[in-house]
């Protein structure tokens, strides 16, 4: 009898912690989304008003649009460049290989806040490195309607190494016999890459894509220091808008309703995305 119950007793501490730190705050936040709730003022029940306001808000739609562009573009570019770099670094480069391999990972270890500040300097229209490289003067990458693309560029600079590291590790785990067998069968380099290499590393690509997708959707720190969502909300993403609503405006109720919708939508998207990738690449 005791042995039968023992398993429940053993999971009880973990269950209490999980309920206390994950489930309770989730329901607390859900409840908060039905109130006009500001720090220091009494909460007022408003039903679904926060959600309705959200759908009416041009700021929310603008942030959603920016987030979609940001995520799709950044993750896609990071994947392509990361893959290219990994394939390149998987070859014999002699003495330089360990140095270049290590150097390529450095941006990943810099705090996004610092990356934002550095890129703000790089993009300075009058003294920045960007204008110097282009040979232009007075071009403000983050001061126009294309600002979001230049924020994406900073993100790509920082997170391409993440893709590169994961894909490189996967490339190195491909058994050489498979590649040799392909060569014996007369495959060309391109055929080998498409039909042997890529399927062999697809699981790593799925993992890297998923992690980057989740991370990019909540982009905040880089934007905070690089553009603060400007100009005119042109680089404001959902993560930034939730942060601004909660911690600048102190509109906890509105921010919570936004965060809940965001979590649900992202949950559905990620589940479907993973499902599609799994089916497409026959990982499971």
């Amino acid at each position: 009898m005791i042995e039968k119950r023992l398993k429940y007793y053993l999971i009880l501490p973990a269950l209490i912690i999980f309920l206390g730190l994950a489930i309770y705050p989730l329901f607390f936040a859900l409840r908060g989304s039905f109130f006009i709730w500001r720090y220091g003022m009494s909460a007022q029940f408003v039903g679904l008003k926060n959600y309705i306001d959200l759908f009416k808000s041009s700021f929310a739609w603008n942030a959603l649009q920016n987030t979609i562009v940001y995520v799709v573009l950044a993750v896609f570019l990071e994947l392509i460049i990361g893959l290219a770099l990994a394939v390149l670094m998987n070859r014999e480069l002699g003495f330089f290989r360990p140095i270049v391999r290590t150097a390529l990972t450095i941006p990943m270890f810099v705090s996004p806040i610092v990356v934002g500040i550095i890129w703000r300097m790089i993009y300075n229209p009058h003294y920045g490195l960007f204008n110097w490289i282009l040979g232009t003067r007075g071009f403000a990458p983050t001061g126009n309607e294309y600002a979001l693309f230049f924020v994406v560029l900073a993100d790509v600079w920082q997170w391409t190494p993440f893709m590169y590291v994961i894909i490189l590790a996967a490339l190195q785990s491909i058994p050489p016999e498979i590649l040799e067998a392909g060569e014996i069968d007369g495959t060309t380099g391109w055929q080998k890459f498409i039909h042997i290499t890529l399927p062999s590393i697809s699981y790593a690509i799925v993992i890297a894509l998923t992690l980057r997708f989740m991370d990019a959707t909540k982009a905040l720190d880089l934007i905070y220091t690089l553009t603060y969502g400007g100009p005119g909300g042109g680089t404001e993403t959902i993560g930034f808008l939730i942060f601004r609503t909660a911690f600048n405006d102190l509109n906890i109720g509105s921010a919570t309703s936004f965060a809940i919708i965001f979590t649900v939508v992202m949950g559905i998207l990620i589940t479907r995305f993973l499902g599609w990738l799994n089916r497409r690449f026959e990982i499971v």
Partner: protein
Amino acid sequence: MKRIIVLSLIVVSVLLIAIVPAFAAEKRFDGVTLKVFANSHDPMLKAVKWSIPVVKEKFGIDILMDEAPYGTQFDKAMSAFVAHTGQYDVIVGAHQWTGAWADGGYVIPLDDYIKNDPEFDPSIYVEKAYQINSEWKGKQYALPFNMEGRLMFYRKDIFEKEGFKVPTNRDEWLNIVQSINNNPEYKEKGIWGAVYMYATEQGISYPFETYFQMFDWNSVKTENGFWDENFQICIDKPKMVEAFQYWQDRLNDMPPGVESYNLPEAYQFYLDGKAAMTEVWPLTLYGMLLDPANADLRAKTGTADIAIGYPMSGGWGIFICADSKIQDAAWEYIKFMTNAENDLYFFKEFGKGPSVKATYTDESLKETYGDWLEGQSEAISKAVSYGKIATMSEFYGGNFAVITNQIMTGKLSAEEGVDKLIEELKGILERAGYPQK
């Protein structure tokens, strides 16, 4: 004999035990630890740090200091206040936070201390500074600590060479800007007529400063031209549209890239001698100009009242937290930190914006700061504060600021943008507890 010696020793010991603490307790607040929440803005932070050994020596108060930058201080303080952690006794805060803290009962009105303390004389402060930092609904919630009004910096050498007079209105100002921009000699050198900031955080000020100047202050009783004394919107829409249109058009007269400019970029642009005029928070730029490396530019720089509006005020006060158990010690501390002697010292040593009248007329400052102090004094006398309602944080960094930026950068027309601003402001006022009729 032995017994007498022992007895004498006991008597002496008892006497010592009784007398020593009596001497040690000479300071009124011995053993009291005051928890001060400072702002990370350098001049104010340096002043608070300076006070740590000084108030220990003077009052016996130990200071436990916490600090946060502008962007996070309000939210951090609110978290502590709402939870009633008693984490802070004294807080250095921006004037626009007064309503949120006072309405929530998180800071105490100082009126009783002011009335009952014979040593305290409020007339030492610049009236505007005392009122802005931070009078709210007829009560005084803080003593003024740091005061600034925005100023225009201009290149005296260029003005003299071209025969320009310091502009006193926006038409004169624009003439100068366009004359310099169209002059091939300056074009060649990369010198622009003016560099003004158009990014969300700082760009918000210019159109409102212009609006403040155009607003008919006799038409309604209001502190900011946004809402009246009953917190009902009283915006003069045609004037606000005109002010915004003016600044939207001015983007064409600015150096490329100002849409991404905040203070650091504007300071640098001016310091590099690339602009004939700029309007910024003055203390930091003035401090930079006092650097020997900038001595040449300093000699060529003049400061003047802004030509294109009433300057916005930037004021900081020191508040006493309602959860504090040592409010008497806190009062002594804030009184000390804002007294005339320290106001002068903090300005000279750390560049803190003076709040005391005597600092502006101090003879020892005339040579180095004469023109600046004169301009600053005038700017403060005209300065307008955006207000102090409980939801001011939405006004500064929320949708309101984003819409302002959208109009300035031409994403929205002035007409459409001002309509949006009014709608947004209605929400801000309603959320602060003032339903709109």
